[in-house]
């Protein structure tokens, strides 16, 4: 039988162009046969070929046993093939892995260094927990091998073993530590490497090494090791702030002297990452050092090498958090990077620039980014040629590449990049509650422009069978990916928070709603999600619309039906709101034209709603049904109300002027902190689990059979009922004007706590520091400003309660043209203010729950840290928090421990107080010798407790100081238990407490 070697196989694959697959399959079949051969030579060749094929994705895990056989060959050449196969194909779950133990052990003691390194190397790839346990002692013995090659290779493999079975760390650590003193620099370097890896998981174990490491740093070794040392110190300094002072001189020295760019960069990066710069931020020296770093980093950016540019930007992005002012000095070079040809650099620059913005630079930076998004503006870049695979090409020497480059092609910005640019622009502007935005009208223009630039929403890889499900998923995905959503949120935020530009914001929203075709990008369909929030704005601030009729028409256009359901449900609400503002006016006489107009309007809404009442989306359906009922009532009322004529004057129907608007008017909506709701205390006596009406099911059943509710035969009766229901103002809508809707919630809190809780969310700021007359004046000013605004409805008499009677008394505002002075425009345009007022989130007691949020974030991070590893197969979670010295101390119990500690502390204080009492009594009852004995026992118990506390918290407290020999015993006990789990301790404290209580009871009895 003709045998193919690797050479023939590769040649064969190349010779069978177009038919490779068949050839490979054929070869695989042959390999299968050859692998079973008795001749180890043939077997090895087969395995070698299999390794080659495995590289191209033809699995060779089936051959693991054959690989093992080749591994055990006595010939180095074959052995090498075997180990290569093991590295390539063995996984943690490969069953022959357990058979390798002895084989590797034997090879580890081979007299030949190459063979030994083969075994060490192989082990580093295939090590499993059991292999680690079995072979770690042998590896440790290699740490003192005569050849530095073996020593330096054994060290990283030991680390791999620690990853597999963390408890090995404790036994091997002393020997590993000694390697820091090795005479060979590569060995020391490898050890530093490993310590660096270990210290990342649990830095505090390696703090004692600091002096030794510091010496290595100052002695100067090769750059690799120095880099690692700096990285290592960067992980240690947060735990030992005193290191900062010590490290600054040598690192400064390195920065100034090193010729190696990589080392220079790592020094700067280490200074930033280790918090060294932040640590000495306030000192003059720190400021100087930081400015040196920034200057060096500027050099990175302008030097011309794109790699340096890239890393320089990363370092600056980290630095900008603490030293924004220094980084800002170089914003010229950073801005150049934003327009770099290289997309990677752009990403980095983008990240950095977000931290750099200030009120002065914002518009420049945003402008620069927006220009990139402009479709006509394309950069051209060179693309590398992609060579074809032929013999000549492959013989091209690696070190001497062709100089020829590809043609210039336009740099097509990926959609993903556009998406991020838009997100970053929004982030920059909205940062710190719009701290950087000085001109909100400009910001609104930016938002409108961004919608036009919105990239197409890419949705990839969704093809479930169920079409409906797929559609829902798609909608969900689009919601997440479309920047329109984010832009809409910004628009809404501005409309709510910045009252001075609210009319402009409403106009923008109106533009989106009305001119849907003009304002969105021509292709791709991105940005459409902005409609949701725009819809909300035009509804909420319907009185500010420039053209309510047109907006209304756009909302109820049949095309709205095709919108995503969540936007559609917002639309439904807005339609009603605008309807209310269109029809509720008192001032327009109820003529027959008006009646026809309103009837028509109502009819159109009803026609729009009709198909939506059977919408598959529940939210849409529910709202449609509700509003349909409402509008039917309106129609009825409109038809019932005769129009005014020359002789008789009729008012518009009350349902239009009162009932419908009252659904939406009331308190203005203000931004509320995301966690404010959580902090609202539950009013006493409110049980949310208790049904409001326990008979609800039966009521529903009864309602179904109640003819008076379902039939509409008896129209008069029906009408009366409706009149009663809708025309009499319900109690809930007559909330006093100056009290917010949430008053009910607040007053509960006010009642329960003695602290003064503000009655209102809105007026709290003004009320607390402004006198009544000033407030009145301000109010007047406000009214004055809106005097000529026909859409502005005043509340007569300020904050008086509006009742039915009052409503009748409201005088119809007369528009006196002569009274309007020509100087009004000056009053309307308020002088330019330093800062535009931005409404902040509201919370309870001024707490917006930010710290809680942070806490939660921390938790999230912790949770995330646990599930890693994955694709690259590194799972070091076993080493996280693994102590070198501790006994039974468990990892990840930190939270619990903290809590337990608190509890112990509390109990200790209680007991101290109690002990004090007891001592007093003891003095009082000196006479009663029998009882004192018992009390002494208590004090002794107290002493025991204190001993432990002392150990734990290092407190220096006086002892009761009695009974020396007993104390000794106590101490011993304390030591024994010192290592025990915290819980146990807690229990003990409790036990002691009960003991004490017993004695106390006893003393009381004695009294």
């Amino acid at each position, binding site marked *: 039988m003709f045998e193919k070697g690797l050479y023939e196989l590769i040649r064969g694959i190349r010779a069978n162009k177009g038919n490779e697959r068949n050839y490979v399959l054929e070869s695989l079949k042959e390999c299968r046969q050859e692998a079973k051969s008795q001749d180890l030579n043939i077997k090895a060749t087969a395995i070698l070929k299999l390794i080659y094929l495995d590289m191209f994705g033809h699995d060779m895990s089936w051959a693991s046993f054959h690989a093992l056989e080749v591994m055990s060959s006595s010939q180095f050449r074959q052995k090498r093939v075997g180990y*290569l196969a093991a590295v390539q194909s063995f996984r943690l779950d490969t069953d022959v892995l357990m058979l390798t133990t002895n084989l590797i052990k034997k090879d580890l003691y081979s007299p030949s260094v190459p063979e030994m390194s083969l075994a060490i190397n192989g082990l580093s790839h295939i090590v499993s927990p059991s292999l680690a346990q079995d072979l770690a002692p042998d590896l440790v013995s290699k740490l003192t091998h005569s050849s530095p090659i073996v020593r330096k290779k054994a060290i990283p493999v030991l680390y*791999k073993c620690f990853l597999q079975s963390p408890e090995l760390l404790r036994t091997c650590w002393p020997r590993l530590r000694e390697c820091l003193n090795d005479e060979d620099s590569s060995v020391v370097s490898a050890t530093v490497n490993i310590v660096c*890896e270990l210290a*990342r998981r649990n830095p505090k174990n390696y703090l004692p090494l600091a002096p030794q490491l510091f010496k290595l740093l100052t002695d100067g070794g090769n750059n690799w090791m120095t880099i690692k040392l700096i990285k290592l110190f960067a992980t240690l300094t947060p735990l030992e702030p005193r290191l900062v002072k010590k490290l600054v001189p040598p690192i400064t020295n390195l920065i100034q002297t090193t010729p190696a760019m990589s080392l220079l960069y790592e020094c700067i990066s280490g200074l930033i990452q280790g918090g060294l710069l932040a640590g000495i931020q306030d000192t003059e020296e720190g400021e100087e050092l930081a400015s040196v770093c920034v200057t060096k980093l500027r050099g990175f950016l302008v030097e011309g090498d794109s790699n340096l540019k890239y890393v320089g930007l990363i370092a600056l992005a980290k630095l900008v958090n603490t030293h924004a002012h220094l980084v800002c000095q170089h914003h010229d070079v950073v801005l150049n990077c934003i327009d770099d040809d290289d997309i990677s650099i752009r990403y980095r620059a983008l990240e950095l620039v977000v931290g750099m913005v200030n009120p002065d630079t914002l518009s420049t930076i945003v402008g620069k980014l927006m220009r990139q998004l402009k479709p006509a503006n394309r950069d051209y870049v060179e693309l590398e040629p992609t060579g074809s695979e032929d013999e000549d090409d*492959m013989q091209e*020497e690696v070190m001497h590449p062709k100089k020829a480059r590809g043609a210039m092609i336009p740099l097509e910005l990926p959609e993903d990049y556009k998406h991020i640019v838009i997100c970053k622009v929004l982030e920059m502007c909205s940062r710190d509650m719009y701290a950087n935005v000085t001109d909100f009208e400009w910001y609104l223009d930016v938002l409108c422009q961004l919608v036009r630039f919105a990239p197409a929403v890419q949705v990839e890889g969704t093809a479930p069978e169920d079409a409906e499900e797929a559609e829902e998923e798609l909608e969900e995905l689009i919601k997440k990916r479309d920047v329109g959503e984010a832009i809409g949120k910004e628009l809404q935020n501005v409309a709510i928070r910045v009252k001075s530009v609210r009319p402009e914001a409403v106009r923008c929203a109106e533009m989106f709603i009305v001119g849907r075709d003009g304002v969105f990008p021509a292709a791709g369909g991105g940005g459409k999600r902005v409609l949701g929030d725009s819809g909300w704005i035009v509804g909420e601030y319907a009185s500010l619309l420039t053209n309510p009729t047109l907006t209304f028409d756009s909302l109820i256009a049949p095309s709205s039906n095709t919108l995503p359901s969540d936007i559609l449900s917002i639309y439904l609400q807005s339609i009603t709101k605008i309807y209310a503002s269109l029809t509720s006016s008192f001032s327009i006489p109820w003529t027959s034209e008006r009646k026809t107009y309103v009837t028509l309007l109502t009819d159109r809404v009803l026609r729009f709603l009709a198909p939506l009442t059977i919408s598959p989306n529940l939210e849409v359906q529910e709202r449609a049904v509700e509003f349909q009922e409402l509008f039917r009532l309106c129609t009825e009322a409109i038809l019932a109300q005769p129009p005014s004529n020359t002789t008789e004057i009729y008012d518009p129907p009350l349902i239009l002027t009162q009932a419908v608007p009252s659904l939406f008017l009331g308190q203005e909506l203000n931004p509320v902190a995301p966690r404010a709701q959580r902090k609202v205390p539950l009013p006493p006596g409110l049980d949310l689990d208790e049904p409001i009406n326990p008979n609800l099911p039966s009521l529903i059943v009864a309602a179904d059979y109640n003819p008076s509710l379902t039939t509409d035969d008896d129209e008069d009766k029906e009408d009366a009922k409706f009149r009663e229901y809708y025309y009499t103002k319900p109690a809930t809508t007559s909330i006093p004007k100056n009290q917010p809707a949430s008053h009910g919630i607040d007053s509960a809190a006010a009642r329960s706590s003695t602290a003064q809780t503000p009655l209102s969310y809105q007026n709290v700021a003004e009320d607390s520091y402004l006198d009544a007359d000033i407030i009145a004046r301000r109010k007047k000013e406000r009214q004055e400003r809106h005097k000529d605004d026909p859409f502005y409805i005043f509340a007569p008499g300020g904050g008086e309660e509006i009742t039915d009677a009052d409503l009748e008394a409201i005088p119809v505002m007369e528009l006196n043209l002569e009274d309007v002075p020509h100087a009004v425009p000056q009053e309307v345009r308020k002088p330019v203010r330093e800062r535009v007022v931005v409404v902040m989130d509201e919370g309870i007691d001024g707490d917006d729950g930010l710290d809680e949020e942070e806490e939660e974030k921390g938790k999230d991070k912790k949770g995330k840290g646990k599930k890693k590893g994955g694709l690259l197969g590194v799972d070091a979670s076993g080493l996280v928090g693994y102590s070198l010295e501790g006994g039974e101390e468990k990892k990840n119990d930190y939270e619990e421990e903290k809590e337990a500690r608190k509890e112990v502390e509390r109990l200790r204080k209680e007991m101290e107080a109690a002990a004090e009492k007891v001592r007093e009594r003891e003095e009082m009852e000196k006479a009663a010798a029998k009882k004192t004995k018992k009390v002494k026992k208590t004090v002794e118990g107290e002493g025991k407790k204190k001993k432990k506390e002392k150990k734990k918290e290092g407190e220096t407290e006086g002892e009761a100081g009695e009974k020396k020999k007993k104390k000794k015993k106590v101490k011993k006990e304390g030591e024994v238990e010192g290592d025990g789990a915290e819980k146990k301790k807690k229990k003990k404290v409790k036990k002691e407490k009960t003991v004490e209580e017993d004695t106390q009871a006893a003393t009381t009895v004695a009294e």
Partner: protein
Amino acid sequence: MINAVLVFNNNGQPRLDIALQQRLLQQIFNLVANRPATACNFLPLPPLLAGSNSWNTSDADEPITLLYRHYATLYFIVISDSLESPLGLLDLIQVFVQALDQLFENVCELDLIFNFETLHATIEEMIVGGCVVETDLNKIVACVRESEKVVKKGHGMRPGGGTGAGAGRGGFMGGDLVWTGR
């Protein structure tokens, strides 16, 4: 820690790859192949590595760096975590290629195809268990030669030795390097 070292050619065919998913390989290749010549040597993370993030954010738990260098028909790629120095790794690739060049005397892709064992041996002299253990070019070359000698002693011939034969070309140190080490 270095997570992986990859070598593949202009067509994305792997030349060195230790137990890495083919899909990831493909994604990395797609990224690397579309980069202009002037671009820097850092890659954005491919979807498989990036996880939920659509791009590489620096505040991730353990930011991963993806570096590459392009020599003639071959891409050399290193995947590492934040504890490695990125500029240092670029040097390391350079040392790796120089070592190969010395071992094969004007190395070309074919050398690496037919002698991938040597390729593995070289990388193992430099990186063990994800840690860089040697950066000295001479030591690396010496060690690899040593083990090659053992192979020859045992078998009498080097399998496929020097088949690619780039003989006759100019020595590498005299030539122009694409990127001078830092």
